[in-house]
């Protein structure tokens, strides 16, 4: 880039980009990996890259494809770009989720039939009525989805009947989109060439959580100038790629294989978390084996130490969290101020409702917090499905689908009328930040989560999840665990999460006299489930 970087660009000079951000914005040509740690200004860089391409390099907006992880992220990105380029005509710029991009291409090509529509849940069940016994339809669909996510058309008779029924009505499943679009590209190379030609610049966000199908689709579409942005340390949706082929799909590894000439740029200045939180988070993530060592620098001063508290029960944990929230709000009621116990003497800052998030591993953990908040009357919004109609926990996989593709079940992140405290899973908190984060249920068996049998999530991924939870926090991080927890009809007695013990003593403040054991002996694994 050499010379170019010296140029004075309105879109760049108007904003204060640090040197690594600036380098990431200006590196527009070729295969580029931007490794962006938490809070390093990834979204900014993403938006500025596009603004730079359009404004400074004269790339027509229609030649850019920007891929976001969720619909709301896409909308937000479009807004940011429009703010940076108030005078540009952005109507031909594509800022889409993978699904939306695939659907747009299929619509444009009228493939495999004109006016393809996505089947609603009810339509799918209706179509299945004659094919699969009623009670088994949902499980059957789940299995079907697994096959399709590996980019394979199902071969059994029932599936073929189902696909035929969909086709007759001009419908498709979500997962069919990538199969169709890749089929189109294979059958009609000239069409692929046309789209490739159109999108000279492809940029993909949250690359660490890209699924096999998404990668195959976007990777096929992208030409020379293909930029992926993400953070391997925040890869928490790896499970979505499980079960396809012998080798597990890992997007960064695959990208390196496919584009050996790639250049890697790193964003390493963290603007979100005060120093202590960032240090603690790095102590935790550094213990993941096979991790490429990376260091983030905190741009904020060191603040309050991390609160770590153990509680007799999950109920007590919820009560104490809500009490702390009252304190952080500076006393929500006159009662709490006047009685003195609500004010957090050590923190002179006053926080608002929307500054505070309660994060947990499983949706089922939300209920006790909701009850405790209800009792006090503090406003909150719980994001994500709690349980299915049949009472089972919604798996992160399914929650992800909903989150990424539909975002129907959840209210939008900007509550329309009033501010509220946020309750969500750590998975769903990805990409978000809050001045105050309560990371709850930090027990060995909850976070890291372990299921009965062999299909527990990978411990490395669970550690990354914990890291993602920690790095959502700006100025206060409060970690809690319960000695007894009632979950899915059982009472569990689990020890504190081993991740908690990886945080140095100097960075934490234990509540009361409940000292944590520094390290639990390995042979004393608690009984699980």
């Amino acid at each position, binding site marked *: 880039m050499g010379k170019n970087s010296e140029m004075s660009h309105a879109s760049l000079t108007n904003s204060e980009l640090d040197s690594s951000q600036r380098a990431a914005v200006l590196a527009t040509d070729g295969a580029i990996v931007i490794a962006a740690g938490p809070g390093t200004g990834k979204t900014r860089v993403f938006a500025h890259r596009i603004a730079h391409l359009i404004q400074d390099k004269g790339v027509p907006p229609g030649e850019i494809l920007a891929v976001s992880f969720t619909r709301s992220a896409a909308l937000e990105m479009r807004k940011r770009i429009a703010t940076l380029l108030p005078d540009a005509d952005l109507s031909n710029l594509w800022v889409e989720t993978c699904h939306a991009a695939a659907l747009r291409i299929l619509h444009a090509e009228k493939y495999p039939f004109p006016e393809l529509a996505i089947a609603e849940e009810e339509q799918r069940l209706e179509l299945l009525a004659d094919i699969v016994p009623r009670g088994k339809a949902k499980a059957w669909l789940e299995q079907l989805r697994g096959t399709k996510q590996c980019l394979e058309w199902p071969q059994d008779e029932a599936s073929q009947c189902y696909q035929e029924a969909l086709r007759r009505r001009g419908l498709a499943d979500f997962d069919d989109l990538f199969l169709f679009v890749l089929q189109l590209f294979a059958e009609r190379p000239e069409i692929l060439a046309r789209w490739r030609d159109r999108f000279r610049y492809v940029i993909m966000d949250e690359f660490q959580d890209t699924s096999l199908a998404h990668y195959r689709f976007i990777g096929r579409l992208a030409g020379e100038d293909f930029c992926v942005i993400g953070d391997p340390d925040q890869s928490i949706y790896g499970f979505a790629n499980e079960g396809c082929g012998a080798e597990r799909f890992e997007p960064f590894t695959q990208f390196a294989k496919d584009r050996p000439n790639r250049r890697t740029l790193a964003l390493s200045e963290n603007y979100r978390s005060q120093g202590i939180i960032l240090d603690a988070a790095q102590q935790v993530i550094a213990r993941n084996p096979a991790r490429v060592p990376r260091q983030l620098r905190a741009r904020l001063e060191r603040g309050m130490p991390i609160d770590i508290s153990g509680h007799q029960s999950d109920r007590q944990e919820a009560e104490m969290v809500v009490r702390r929230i009252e304190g952080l*709000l*500076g*006393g*929500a*009621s*006159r*009662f709490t*101020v*006047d009685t*003195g116990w609500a004010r957090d*003497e050590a923190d*002179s800052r*006053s*926080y*608002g*409702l*929307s*500054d505070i998030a309660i994060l947990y591993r499983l949706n089922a953990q939300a209920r006790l917090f909701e009850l405790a908040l*209800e*009792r*006090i*009357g*503090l*406003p909150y919004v719980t994001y994500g499905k709690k349980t299915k109609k049949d009472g089972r926990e919604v798996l992160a996989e399914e929650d992800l689908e909903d989150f990424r593709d539909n975002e129907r079940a959840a209210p939008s992140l900007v*509550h329309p*009328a*009033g*501010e*509220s405290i946020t309750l969500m899973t750590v998975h769903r908190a990805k990409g978000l930040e809050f001045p105050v984060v309560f990371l709850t249920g930090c027990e060995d068996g909850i976070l890291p989560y372990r299921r009965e049998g062999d299909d527990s999530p990978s411990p490395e991924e669970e550690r990354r999840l914990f890291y993602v939870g920690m790095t959502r926090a700006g100025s206060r991080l409060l970690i809690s665990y319960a000695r007894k927890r009632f979950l899915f009809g059982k009472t569990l007695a689990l020890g504190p999460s081993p991740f908690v013990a990886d945080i140095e003593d100097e960075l934490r403040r234990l509540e009361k006299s409940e000292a944590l054991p520094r390290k639990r002996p390995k042979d004393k694994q608690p009984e699980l489930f």
Partner: protein
Amino acid sequence: MRFVADLHIHSKYSRACSPALEPGPLYRWSQLKGITVLATGDFTHPAWSALLQEQLVPAEPGLFQLKPELARQQDRDVPASCRAAARFLLEAEISCIYKRDGKVRKVHHLVFAPSFETAARISASLGAIGNIRSDGRPILGLDSRDLLRIVREASPEAYLVPAHAWTPHFAVFGSESGFDSLEECFGDLAGEIFAVETGLSSDPPMNWRLSALDRVALISNSDAHSPEKLGREANLFDCELSYDAIFSAIRGRDPKRFLKTLEFFPEEGKYHVDGHRKCEVRLEPEETIRRKGLCPSCGRPVTIGVLHRVEKLADRKKGKKPAGAADFEHLIPLKEILGQVLRVGAGSVRVDALYHRLLARFGNEFHILRELPAKDLEKEGLPLLALALERMRKGEVELQPGFDGEYGVISLLAKKDFSHQDQLALF
């Protein structure tokens, strides 16, 4: 007619409030206190609203009264000397917690409704935004301006009045989480605000120092959390007995109809001067400024009191009364005075017995505090009480101002007043 109105209280459904706050006892205590129109408090709370609708019936336009059969039961415990009409007016307080311009704002507002239908409309709008079931004074993440819009859209006769406007933590002008002006808080809708509740820690002369407040009426209410506290501040009207007449007197700032507010000595309020309760440090505003806002004991910022805050926003010296402003009168609750006279706690059994004896003999509390000739008390053998009342009425009191949530102490009597043994023997 002349009557006293207390337009801000709470029900038993508000946090940290007495379980005795039910329509019956409120009706009885209104009479003991001498209040003709009492706010219901908490109309947004579903259970309280249901109880009100079950036990009240319409009286004059926009006002309600206890059902006759329930009233008769209560009247048995009201001495004949105190019996009078008592009405209810629908009111609720909303706690808004939200961020504006990067700062956390916590502001309480009073909302008034002329009918249960209007109240239900407001409750429905607020219920869609947040939780109004848990607390009689709901906490909503709602911007004050949006609340005002909801109230004004519910009915042209529904009004919003910022509550205890100077309280540091929860008020429109509060030092900790408020605003510097009504315009800053309510934006383009600021013109809809025609009154401000002064709260226990400020009185009209303090508010008169802000010329920006010349256009609004200053009202005073008890914010009672138990029946005994009803009317510790209140408003005196001379108008027709109806919702509309009360609010048109307030809106019109007509000193012939909205006569005066009955006030605490502001020094008695919990947030008058600055300080730290935990450190037992009380600071006058000048002292706080000299110490750069920090507590001499712990070094952390002190809680800024109302006096300091008024000083900061004031654009006028003491002593000017804006045209049209209602008069005011400083009072001390009778039980507190009796406590001083008897040299026991205001909550003691002896004070309570004498209190009820006086009410039975002379009439309601406001009458005793404001109108009863001191001579009558002397004749009754209560010369010390007569002396204390006279001093209160003349403002000859000794004040230890409240700070950081600690009530102030007002002394009417000195040691030498108790020197005559024969007087003490009377009690």
